[in-house]
């Protein structure tokens, strides 16, 4: 059953709502969440959006500037929603008038449309059902009944018609268990198929649900079992003592090589460095992702051909004016734009998603006279890029530092990232910048793995004349960080900058260690350091980092990446696409940009210039 169907303008005025009696009785205002996290994030080309216990689907009418949103319970799997949305859009656009605000007469029309859509969906189900023999199994039927009544609060036996569609996500088991003898309810012929667990997180309050389904299913759902598996494996690393990291199957040499500097610092213990096999310098393969230059030549050849045709027809149309933009018209312009973005080192799937989102927002719009399709698309894309790159929360670190100072605790920043992006260097730059604003800084050397990491930080600390907290090598970084923060609180330092070891996003034990560090110390800012040279890998890095931090977190609200530090910006001339990929995939703003290798080379991101460079 549809919870609510809402029609509102892009300016925020609600024109019509299907459940007016209850007002906006939806839990947690899902519509606002939809707008903030999906539509304004240029993900409007997605098929649906889930928020807490609801799923939302939407449709646009770009010419009139209207948005139609349908909200229903996530566990239901209504098929007729898309159909209904397009029907509603069609009907409403006929009665819409900008001056009019009351659309109560649409209620009748809506009820009718809803019935029609449900009937159509029911017919389609019946067709499919008659096409195959419904397997009947008594035991599963019983369980199916149980889950059904558990799901539906009102207890009406909803028709299932469970024709198990040939889903690949393991729903077949469900379909079978629901289809058999459960009589179709006369009203509301929605099928209440249990939603695919593989796609969405199981809601915690349907715990009994999960167990039943897991028993029934032949194939295990991804998330359901995944959660169970991670719980027992979590216990393991706690028991095992941290072993030396072995990158290859090489025997470990026993001789210890100690190159630490004895004089100068009496607090430092005698550091013992164990050589882990042969030096990996010869074995290292530098994989630089190349998204630029791929298929450039073919694209160039194809572009002029398509351009000529597009230019003629678009010139004609632009003079005639008053033509509605169709998807086919947008395709060539969007493809050209996408290629242009990719030559600027934007990750391929990001460029694709952006283009689709722009297409959704332009479809059905009327072309102004004397404007070409390509220029409309360009303006829309520019606006979209500006929107994405504008930070959605304040990036004023100094203010947060002062706020933390008033509360009497140090402001903790953790630098995370993959190997070799410039964490330690940029950490020193940030320390230098903070020092210039009369903020007392302390460094914490939690990179206890890489040879020379602690010495490197020590050198920086000596040059900047700030205290550094270190415990040498082979210590647990989480504990080191905790003690560093306590020390900073004692010293009354304002900021603690925590350096961590670089790690690949696929490395499970290392990501777990990082998550432990973050959970234990609850820093104020988790800064992901990424280099501007990265190409398609940026998407993978950030999404995996975020996912691991969310999965392995012990508290309800996981700490995710709060900001991005973009490094090596001076090495790319105008291929600035990495900034866009990172911001799009993580939603975190770019707080700093490192553009050189000395202390002063740190600046803020200039959004307008980046957008201009991307679209040049």
């Amino acid at each position, binding site marked *: 059953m549809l919870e609510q169907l*809402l029609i*509102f*303008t*892009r*300016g*925020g*005025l*609600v*024109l*019509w*709502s299907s459940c*007016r009696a209850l*007002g*906006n009785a939806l839990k947690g205002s899902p*519509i*606002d969440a939809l*707008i*903030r996290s999906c*539509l*304004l994030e240029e993900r409007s080309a997605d098929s649906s959006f889930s928020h807490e216990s609801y799923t939302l689907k939407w449709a646009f009418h770009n010419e009139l*500037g209207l*948005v139609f949103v349908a909200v229903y319970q996530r566990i239901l799997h209504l098929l007729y929603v898309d159909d209904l949305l397009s029907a509603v859009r069609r009907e409403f656009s006929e009665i819409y008038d900008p001056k009019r*605000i*009351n659309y109560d007469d649409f209620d009748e029309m809506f009820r009718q449309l809803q019935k029609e859509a449900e009937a159509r969906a029911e017919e389609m189900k019946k067709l499919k059902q008659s096409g195959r023999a419904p397997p009947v199994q008594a035991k599963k039927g019983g369980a199916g009944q149980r889950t059904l009544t558990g799901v539906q609060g009102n207890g009406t036996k909803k028709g299932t018609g469970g024709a198990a569609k040939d889903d690949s996500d393991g729903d077949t088991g469900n379909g079978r268990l629901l289809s058999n003898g459960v009589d179709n309810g006369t009203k509301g012929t929605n099928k209440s198929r249990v939603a695919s667990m593989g796609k969405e997180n199981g809601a915690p309050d349907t715990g009994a649900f999960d167990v039943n389904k897991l028993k029934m299913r032949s194939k295990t759902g991804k998330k359901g079992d995944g959660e169970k598996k991670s719980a027992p494996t979590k216990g393991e690393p706690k028991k095992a003592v941290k072993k030396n990291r072995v990158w290859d199957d090489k025997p470990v040499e026993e001789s210890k090589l100690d190159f630490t500097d004895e004089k100068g610092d009496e607090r430092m213990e005698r550091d013992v460095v164990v050589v882990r096999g042969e030096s990996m310098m010869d074995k290292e393969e530098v994989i630089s992702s190349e998204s630029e230059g791929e298929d450039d030549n073919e694209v160039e050849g194809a572009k002029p051909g398509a351009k000529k045709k597009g230019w003629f027809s678009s010139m004609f149309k632009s003079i005639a004016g008053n033509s509605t933009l169709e998807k086919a018209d947008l395709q060539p312009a969007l493809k050209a734009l996408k290629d242009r973005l990719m030559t600027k080192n934007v990750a391929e799937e990001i460029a694709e998603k952006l283009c689709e989102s722009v297409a959704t927002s332009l479809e059905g719009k009327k072309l102004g006279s004397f404007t070409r399709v390509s220029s409309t698309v360009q303006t829309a894309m520019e606006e979209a890029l*500006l*929107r*994405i790159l*504008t*930070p*959605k*929360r*304040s990036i*004023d670190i*100094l*203010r947060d530092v*002062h*706020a933390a100072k008033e509360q009497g605790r140090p402001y903790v920043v953790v630098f995370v990232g993959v190997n070799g992006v410039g964490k330690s260097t940029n950490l020193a730059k940030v320390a230098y910048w903070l020092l*210039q*604003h009369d903020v007392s800084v302390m460094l914490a050397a939690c990179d206890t793995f890489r040879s020379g990491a602690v010495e490197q930080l020590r050198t920086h600390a000596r040059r900047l004349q700030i205290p550094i907290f270190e415990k040498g090598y082979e210590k647990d970084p989480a504990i080191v960080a905790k003690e560093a923060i306590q020390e900073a609180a004692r010293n009354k330092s304002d900021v603690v900058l925590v350096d961590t070891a670089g790690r690949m996003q696929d490395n499970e034990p290392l990501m777990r260690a990082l998550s432990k560090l973050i959970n234990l110390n609850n820093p104020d800012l988790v800064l992901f350091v990424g280099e501007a040279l990265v190409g398609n890998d940026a998407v993978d890095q950030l999404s995996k980092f975020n996912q691991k931090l969310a999965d392995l977190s012990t508290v309800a609200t996981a700490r995710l990446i709060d900001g991005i530090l973009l490094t090596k910006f001076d090495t790319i001339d105008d291929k600035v696409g990495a900034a866009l990929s990172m911001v799009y995939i993580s939603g975190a703003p770019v707080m700093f940009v490192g553009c050189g290798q000395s202390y002063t080379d*740190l*600046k*803020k991101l*200039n959004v307008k210039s980046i957008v201009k460079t991307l679209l040049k």
Partner: protein
Amino acid sequence: MELEQLIDQTKQWISEQPVEQIYLAVAVLIITFIFFLVFSFLRTSKSNTIVLAGLSGSGKTVLFQQVRDGSSHQGTVTSMEPNDDTFVLHSDLSEEKKKKKPVPLHLIDVPGHPRLKPKLDDYLPQAAGLVFTVDAQDFLYNYQAAAEYLYDILTKAILVKKKIPVLILCNKTDKVTAHSKEFIKKQLEKEIDKLRASRNAISTADVTNEVVLGTPGTAFTFAQCQNKITMAEASGLTGNISQVEQFIKENVGR
């Protein structure tokens, strides 16, 4: 060749006309031209645009609807685009004894979502007044963000240059837990004072149009600003917007 002939012909024609007529024609042209210039000058100084700004969720769109239609209808959601309309104040419509025709008001409601902040810069140049809405009920949760937004607005060069008056509107006063406008004023002044210290420390590479607010060295108060800043209270949902309308009337169609 033909062009030269044409020119010669017109010269001949002109010399054939009596001299006074030519002088008269030229004089009329000059006078009309001067009239146009004067009119355009007068018109630009009388802008009838009021801009509504504020954080997301502070009640701008509801206020927009109230001022325009007199009721808030079915509620609102987060705005994705600005609401832009020109109309006569709803309260003006009901007063028939007014002899003067009420000046149409151009009201713009700019979305408060942080990603849409640049849109404000498009509308500020034509503004005759700015209404900054603050959620008086949830003030303590987001007063830092509100102060930051207000600081950004007050330091925009165009606002200072044109001395656009600002009305800080404490919205949602119909709720029981709403704070008073004096409390809100003090909190905002304190926050802006702190912001002054931290903001002036941005790297100069990115400073676009920052202006130092108030007098440095002393605690910041709204009275120190060059443009007029006033406080008011209102409630968008119940329609208690008399102070807003007063502000509008003062600044539009002067």
